[in-house]
């Protein structure tokens, strides 16, 4: 187990270097000089231009900039935002809980709906229930998040008035961030009604963010179920006279879950990518929205640092998924 963990962690190093190199190079490959862009129509005199280039370190050779950058990264210093002048890591940590909260709720929604629906489609293969689930999941999978979000806002928030349009909490509540998770902070704040209001604000964004993972999970569960249901041990279980619920729920589902868990793990990447759009629509103050803003403002340190931190999160989640297989199926425990 220990050795397994070590090899896995070792595998992360090249990925890490790759990610830093990519983000570093990509943002610098965009032609045009950032100081000139910042100055806009007004322009900037050459002397001031040179001074700013030096201050930001853009006047050094690109390789040297990278080496300095990596050195700082290993010291835990991701630099300061060019815009807000605050450390990138502080800004990330401030906003990350909002993204995690939204992603968790979206994932829970996707699993709670996706799994049973997938099982249903698998068990009722070829029947109307199956066709409906497959058609809906295809639609969900292909849904442009931005359009889907606006559609739900217009229907549920503007026309029906059931849900708030955007944000994390009604401004009549004044809740100080303690954990950064609004659902927890509102509970800690003992302001009556604020917890429910926080949940209320979570509904639409998590449905929007959870739609693609939901579709993927449903389809994966269905195909895994189909495979497992034709296995001998399922026939045996049925022959033993076990109730259909026990056969499907315990014997079949447990084995069908392995590929499903893999897919769920892979969806974390999808979730974080989807969060960029979802957060922009719902004015959700998380890292997705922050990254978009930083790209627009050419805030190099924030973009580099932000992408790097997101990549680290995805790598760690994938590692956790690898470890989880063992919990589901003892045969894959890591003696290798």
């Amino acid at each position, binding site marked *: 187990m220990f050795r397994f963990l070590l090899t896995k962690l070792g595998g992360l190093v090249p990925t890490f270097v790759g990610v830093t190199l990519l983000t570093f190079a990509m943002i610098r490959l965009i032609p045009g000089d950032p100081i000139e862009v910042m100055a806009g129509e007004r322009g900037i005199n050459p002397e001031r231009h040179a001074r700013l280039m030096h201050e930001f370190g853009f006047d050094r050779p690109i390789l040297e900039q990278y080496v300095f950058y990596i050195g700082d990264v290993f010291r835990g210093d991701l630099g300061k935002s060019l815009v807000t002048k605050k450390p990138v890591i502080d800004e990330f940590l401030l906003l990350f809980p909002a993204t995690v909260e939204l992603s968790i709720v979206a994932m829970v929604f996707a699993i709670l709906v996706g799994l049973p629906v997938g099982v249903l489609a698998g068990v009722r293969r070829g029947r109307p229930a199956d066709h409906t689930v497959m058609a809906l999941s295809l639609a969900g999978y292909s849904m442009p998040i931005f359009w889907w979000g606006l559609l739900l*806002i217009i229907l549920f928030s503007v026309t029906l008035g059931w849900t708030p349009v955007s944000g994390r909490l009604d401004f009549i509540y004044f809740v100080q961030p303690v954990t950064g998770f609004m659902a927890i902070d509102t509970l800690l704040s003992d302001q009556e009604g604020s917890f429910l209001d926080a949940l209320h604000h979570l509904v639409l964004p998590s449905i929007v963010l959870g739609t693609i993972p939901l579709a993927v999970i449903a389809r994966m569960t269905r195909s895994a179920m189909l495979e497992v249901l034709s296995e001998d041990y399922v026939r045996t279980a049925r022959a033993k006279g076990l109730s259909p619920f026990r056969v499907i729920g315990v014997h079949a589902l447990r084995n069908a879950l392995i590929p499903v868990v893999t897919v769920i793990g892979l969806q974390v990447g999808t979730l974080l990518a989807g969060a960029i759009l979802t957060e922009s629509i719902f004015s959700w103050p998380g890292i997705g929205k922050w990254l978009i803003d930083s790209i627009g403002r050419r805030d190099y340190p924030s973009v580099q640092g932000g992408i790097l931190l997101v990549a680290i999160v995805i790598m760690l989640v994938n590692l956790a998924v690898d470890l989880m297989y063992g919990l589901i199926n003892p045969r894959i425990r890591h003696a290798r």
Partner: protein
Amino acid sequence: MKRQFLGAAVLATAVLGFAFAADAKTLVFCSEGSPEGFNPQFFQAGTTFDASSRAIFNRLVEFERGGTSIQPGLAESWEVADDGLSYTFHLRKGVKFHGNATFTPTRDFNADDVVFSFERQWKTDHPYHAVTATTYQYFGDMGMPDLLKAVEKVDDMTVRFVLNAPEAPFLSNMGMDFASIMSAEQADALMKAGTPEQIDQTPVGTGPFMLVDYQKDAVIRYKANADYWEGKPAIDDLVFAITTDASVRYAKLKAGECHIMPYPNPADIKAMKADPTLTVMEQEGLNVGYLAFNTEKKPFDNKLVRQALNYAINKDAILKGVFQGAGQAAKNPIPPTIWSYNDDVKDYGYDPVKALQLLKEAGLQGGFETDIWAMPVQRPYNPNAQRMAELIQADWAAIGVKAKIVSFEWGEYLDRSKKGEHQTMLLGWTGDNGDPDNFLHVLLGCDAAKSGGNRARWCDKAFDDLVVAAKRTADVAARTDLYKKAQVVFKDEAPWVTVAHSVVFMPMRKEVTGYKMDPFGIHQFYGVDIQ
């Protein structure tokens, strides 16, 4: 640690009675983005100024609400020396600074605050100069370091600014956001406590609203300043709900989650105007979109050619096709909201026949080949430069002028055009201080032709003499006269095609009263009420 500190401070403030009372009048503004910070000295974005300088701070002079003319602010009156080299400001008595959990002012506003606010940006050895950052962008861009010779405290309530050269727009500069006045007393206290950087996190000003809390990228809360020197604001609480998407802002406005929103989608304006619960205000922006002829290159050194190409362009089609109604045809290089705008100037109408005739006079009846540079980005004065270039290309083709459309990445575009590589190009300008000089001299003067800011590279002695003379005199009536004459020269010489000024829309709920649109595109809420 810093965050916890701020959090605790804000929590304490809330407990001390700043909590949002249920019956308080709260105005919610669905702002379009997050402020970069709360010290306006470092920034240039309107979004940041809305949240910082215009809500929290005051300046020595202020722009009239809804206009560009200067009126007293923290200075009750001022005198300009005859040689135009020194400005003496007499400060307003009894102005109180805000307090917060970590700072309680013990004295009223005085000359020390003014000296501190400018010296921090100006003097590189000032103890606060390098706190947070040293990029005092706007201060530098407006040429303040070269312009200032001294900022002197004459007595507690008098400050004198000595300049290196007479510069009439200096007074307008004093109304700009970077010239906001901060508390020297707070600065001293923080320096003693060893936390000078807090000055930019916990802003203390004299303005109509006090910052209560900022939750990054989500919401900014303000409380009305009950001691405000112009009188307490009509609303009690001001909330900025940061909402970056225009469609979502509109949805929030409809759902009653906010009262006012900036920057609607042009496509939504019609529906907004038809909605009985909403009012849509509109005004020309403080900008101009133009096409500049490179007058150093043939055949654009010939006035007749420039006039011909002016006559050939159908501006109405551009206003419809590019601005979708959110624009107004421009005839002068300054927008109509700026004082000294010359409404007597007559624009070149759309007249291809006249254009052909002028080309013939210039000896170019067969037409010629040229280029049109179109910038790759959306700007307030030009929402779609590519499309605009295509329309102009078609108009010119009709009189035999074949133009190739050229574009570069934005930084590259600005840089190359500054060097004069173009033949004709699209660009524009958004005003900084509402002074005509900020357009006429900065964009069209001979100095700018040398430095590249004048994209037409046009140096006309008659025009330049007028705008330089206007810069040297502080008398507004005399300046107005000079600028009006300069606009006539400009139109006849036609170094640009003045294309359009954008029209800015502000949708708000019917219950909002007293809102005034600001020509600078700034959003301020003093004087606004909810019925």
